[in-house]
């Protein structure tokens, strides 16, 4: 009769003690829950030193994964144009039921269907670099390509002030990809008072961009070309270099392949708009971590872009952006 009462009192105190101690320790070292299973990451292209961009994204992802203690499993098609393959890879990842998926979509429309499967399976999705036409992703982490396009457009406008030739051509990498659409839109916004001849698509083939440029050079009034990604830029620059037309046709490009930077040094490319792939990779995993810990995540994070010219390319602040440590031999 009295024992239950004393026992109860003991247990009550014990419970209070336990809670008090736990609270005390928790305040010293907060414990954050991290899923055991790896996060499924599907990028646009998994191999190829040509696409340094994705190598650097990968670096950012791995740094953040290390910092936040998350496991990641990175996969993707070999080349950006392999949309069906990416869908296949993504479906494979969904079947493993990861705690979260990070996707860089190769196509704005076609990746929606597999993402719906992920949503049905209760897997949250974060998109990076290129989004999809869907509300499913909880966050989209990318360069604001409209802003990036505007930077390129404004630079082109500035460069053309001192040029007698005013026609501008846009060489886009691919039709239908969000990055290409947004960059073109931004460039056209900045150049709305200028004369734009039109947009040509090189289908992510350097040779095609080269040929397009060669034919464009026939136009005596052509004063500038905006190349919307590195593949397009390399093709355009090669044609300009061969024709020795670097002072006649001014090129503003995107991205920072080593060859592009060499063209920048030579003056074949006058300026290039560079994204921050490292930050993109890092922030995608950080956002995933925040989301998995129940924190609110913003629907869009602009990782920013920088206009690089021959003058600022070796400045301390931009050196590592243009020549990442990770790509060193």
């Amino acid at each position, binding site marked *: 009769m009295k024992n239950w009462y*004393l026992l109860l009192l003991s247990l009550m105190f014990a419970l209070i003690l*336990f809670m*008090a101690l736990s609270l005390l320790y928790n305040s010293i070292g907060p414990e954050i829950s991290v899923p055991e299973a790896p996060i499924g990451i599907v990028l646009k292209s998994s191999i190829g030193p040509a696409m340094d961009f994705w190598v650097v994204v990968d670096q950012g992802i791995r740094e953040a994964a290390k910092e936040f203690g998350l496991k990641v499993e990175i996969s993707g098609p070999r080349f950006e144009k392999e949309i069906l393959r990416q869908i296949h890879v993504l479906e494979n990842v969904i079947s493993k039921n990861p705690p979260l998926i990070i996707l860089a979509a190769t196509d704005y429309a076609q990746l929606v269907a597999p993402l719906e499967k992920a949503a049905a399976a209760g897997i949250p999705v974060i998109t990076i670099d290129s989004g999809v036409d869907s509300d499913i992703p909880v966050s989209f982490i990318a360069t604001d390509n409209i802003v990036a396009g505007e930077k390129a457009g404004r630079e082109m406008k500035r460069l053309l002030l001192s040029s007698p030739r005013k026609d501008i051509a846009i060489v886009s990498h691919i039709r239908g990809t969000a990055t290409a659409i947004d960059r073109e839109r931004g460039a056209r916004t900045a150049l709305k008072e200028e004369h734009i001849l039109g947009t040509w698509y090189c289908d992510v083939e350097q040779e095609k961009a080269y040929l397009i440029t060669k034919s464009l050079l026939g136009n005596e009034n052509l004063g500038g070309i905006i190349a919307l990604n590195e593949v397009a830029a390399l093709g355009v620059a090669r044609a300009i270099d061969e024709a020795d037309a670097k002072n006649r046709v001014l090129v503003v490009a995107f991205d920072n392949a080593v060859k592009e930077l060499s063209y920048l*040094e030579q*003056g074949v490319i006058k300026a290039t708009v560079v994204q921050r792939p490292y930050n993109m990779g890092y922030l995608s995993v950080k956002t995933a971590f925040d989301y998995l810990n129940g924190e609110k995540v913003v629907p869009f994070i602009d990782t920013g872009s920088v206009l690089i010219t021959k003058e600022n390319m*070796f400045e301390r602040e931009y050196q590592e952006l243009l020549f990442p440590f990770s790509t060193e031999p």
Partner: protein
Amino acid sequence: MKSSLRLGTLESRIYTIFTLMVFVSIIIMQLVSFRFTINTVRSSTLDSNRAMLLQLVKQMDSYIEGMEQVSMAVAEDDEIQSLLKEVLPERRGTDTDLFYSIQDRLHNYIQAREDISDILVIGDNGIIIPSDLEAEINPWTSVMEKDWYSGAEKAFDRMVVSSSYVQNIIKNRYSWVVSLSRAILSREDRKIMGVLLVDLKFNRIKELCESLVIGRKGYNFILDNEGNYVFHPTQQLVYSSIKEEPIRRILSLIEDPERTSFQEGDRYFMVETSPLTGWHVVSVTHDSDIVTDWKYVQIIYALIGLILFLVVGVATNKISSGITKPVRKLQEIMQSVDTGEFQLVGSIKATDEIRELAREYDIMVGRIRELMEANIREQEFKRKSDLKALQAQIISKGRELILIRDEIEHVRSYLTIQEMRYKDKFQYEMDIDPDLWELITLKITLQPIVENAIYHGIKELDYEGYIAISGWLDGEVIVLEVKDNGQGMDEKQLQEMVQGLETPLEKRPLFSRQGMGVRNVHERIRLYFGQEYGLYCFSTPGKGTTIQVRMPVSTMEDYL
């Protein structure tokens, strides 16, 4: 039993106080020892971290020293001296035996030292000798504009160590290096003839910084003496402000020789400056890496606390109940006094004090029992003898009877005596129907009633008492009445008196002697004449009491 539930009991008090004390002391103990553990682990981690940091700086400096050695050796080279002295039009000197001989030597250094990326000799006369046999000089950059070039010329005979940067002097090659440059002076007239550049692969320093880290979140970074980043593992995050380092605090730490580290948030910063380069190597340790198994330590501590608490709790329970159990038993036994039982404690398992208490109690109870038994025996004896006397009276009926006239005379003489005794206290009056005179009554019927009236009705009055004695015939019943103007009785007292009259002699309470005489009269009349006769009382508080004696009519002849 039930009492132990209440907070006021001895047991719950002991228990509560003990538990509270134990609770508080465990908390304090845990706090102190936990802090102590943490601090010990922390400081030992930081100590080993410092050792690691010193190691890092030492190794980094050894790279720079290696470059210096190469640089010294090359700068003194005879062939270089003579090549740079030549005044050559239009770079013709690049295709000479001397040029190739020098290039071969430079190339050999590179081969031997895999940490060196390039060695270049840049002559003021326009000759540039790269160590790489296939390297082509980048035509789109100007050597003269480079910091390492102008710096070396300015420093004259001292070496200049650059920060980390992308070297673009070779065409189509962009490599991260740290440059060590120095002017090449003519041996004869100490005039500057050119600059010798030794490029250290920055990767070496980077790998060094990345290998000597503590924990998952630890890292190192390097600042030059102006606070610019030479290396940071997440340089881009720092430049785009996603991550921030407390540069100002680090620089102030360098100036303060007293302190070696500081804490900001959950990171510990430790700085060591390289004497050779002037670079500040900063080591960052994350708190969560210092005690890696936080949760484990935490659970262990909580469990130890819990077990301790439970053990002490059970012990406290035993101790407190050991003290209070005999006390409570004693108390329970003592409570039996309430119901009139006097139980003995007997032998009890308890401490000496409690046992002594129990013994004394038992002695006391024994005494009380003896006293009570004696008292009961005495009373019993008295009652028995009363009854005997009564029976004796009843047996000798004849002697019991008396004429009312004689009984009246008897009362009158009693009253006369009492009147003298209680002078001026009361008056009395007698009014007896003369028809009653020759009738019979029991001996001593009126006197106890009158006595009662004086003692209980009149004695305590502060005014003059009055007793009226009257007698008359009520049909076949003789009524003798004693009426006083005394204090009277209220309803309850009257009730008690009537009840007293009706209670048989044997069942009366031991100590109640009051009104014995009156009751005796009542009983005697009933015994003698039958149940329908006896005494009848009427009373009004403050007004007085009337007692009537009712008997059947009878004469002396009836009994002869």
